[in-house]
């Protein structure tokens, strides 16, 4: 890992924050690289999962949050299943993603921030995901309104896409979201 030339802001609190939020102790990692070796999306990542763990240990907050690693993680759980130190790496990644989103850290999230926001908003009001609206909104906001149009048409023809959403338990959902928000404070 090259660190000399970078302007590193050390934040010793990052590992602690992750521990507090997720219960995962990144200091257990002894850099065996098993997680990196099995990661199916490694080739797209700035830093491998192993390097990410090291960066968190060292408190390289800026790198950990702004490398594309956490946004290329597929949550496939391969690393978590294999880690000899029993660290739930995928959960560490999720926790970092949550910190970035909650704190509004500027980072290229590969549209994940937007996607997650649309998804959770939709859930709050309808209780279930309505794929037509989800895809439509995402494509509109990302400026690619015709993405996957060919598939959409085929799916409508074969009766895979419903023309209307099903709306369930809206008031219960809204209350759950409210209480969850309160709990987080």
């Amino acid at each position, binding site marked *: 890992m090259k660190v000399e030339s970078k302007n590193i802001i050390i934040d010793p609190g990052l590992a602690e924050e992750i521990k507090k*939020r*997720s219960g995962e102790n990144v200091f257990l990692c002894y850099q065996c690289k098993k997680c990196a070796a099995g990661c*199916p*999306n490694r080739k*797209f990542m700035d830093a491998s999962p192993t390097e990410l763990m090291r960066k968190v240990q060292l408190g390289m907050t800026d790198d950990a949050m702004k490398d594309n690693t956490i946004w*290329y993680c*597929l*949550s*496939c*759980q*391969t690393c*978590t*299943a294999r880690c000899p130190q029993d660290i*739930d790496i*995928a959960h560490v990644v*999720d*926790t970092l*993603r*949550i910190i970035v*989103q909650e704190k509004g850290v500027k980072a290229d999230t*590969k*549209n*994940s*921030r937007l*996607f*997650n*926001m649309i*998804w*959770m908003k939709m*859930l709050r009001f309808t*209780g*279930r*995901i309505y*794929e037509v609206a*989800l*895809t439509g909104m*995402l494509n509109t906001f990302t400026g690619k309104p015709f*993405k*996957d149009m*060919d*598939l959409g048409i*085929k*799916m409508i023809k*074969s*009766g*895979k*896409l*419903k023309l209307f959403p*099903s709306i*369930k*338990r809206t008031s*219960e*959902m809204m*209350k*759950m*979201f409210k*209480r*969850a928000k309160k*709990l*987080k404070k």
Partner: protein
Amino acid sequence: MKIAYYPGCSLHSTGIEYDMSTRQVCSALGIELAEIKDWLCCGSSPAHQCDEVMSVALPAKNLALAKQTTDSNEVCAPCASCYSRLKIAQQKMQDPKTKKDIEQVIDTTCPDDIKVFHMLDLITEKVDDNLIRQKVSKPLKDIKVACYYGCLMTRPPKATGKDNFENPSDMDRLIEIIGAEPVDWNLKTFCCGAAFALTQTDVVLDLTRQILQDALASDADVISVGCPLCHANLDMRQQQINKKFNTDFNIPIFYFTELMGLSFGVDPKLLGINKHITNVNDFLEERALL
């Protein structure tokens, strides 16, 4: 056998043939599926990526609803992602403080004694092999099947309780029972990129290409899956992959329940097989299964 059924959002849209074939197969095997009344989305990937509390609360709420509306202590979910969220929520709620917090959010108690099954586990663990054999009227002879498990049917083992997560074999065994031939291949537990289907399609095309390639190289005629997200990626993206990588894939992708239904002699239309995006009719005709 009566069991609470949690179809999840995908089975009401892109994965509708999984719902149809699951219902057909269960009814043939004498499993009564009691759909959870007004079930809610499990939160799937976006919830665990952006809201830790809701990612546990949503599955917990559905488990509570299962008990309240079906009076069953057993829940089955055909979608690997829903299954995983339900299992992980149960794992997290083993911590008493988490459980208390979550119950406060869902404003009801979440029973501890509920057992969650993936549809594949339900069939392989709770149904006698001989019963399945008896139902097979059209054995799928000479069909080579790559059984694809993907990520979440088995991982993480701490939540799923599966110790053979590196090389699961339940689906292979089932495929054998219905007369087909499972092939040995490398990528049975590789990731298809499900969570990125809409946001990072390029990643999905890359991963999916590798899976299709390996299945073909292992001489498989078809791929069998147990997850609507895997099915969507493998079935719907083949043309886009062919365009991007200059390949020539045209591999039928079946839910294992569709293959079971075919072997039971159920009308393919009732299994939803006409809804696939990659054409399967030619294959079925060739093998006299239509």
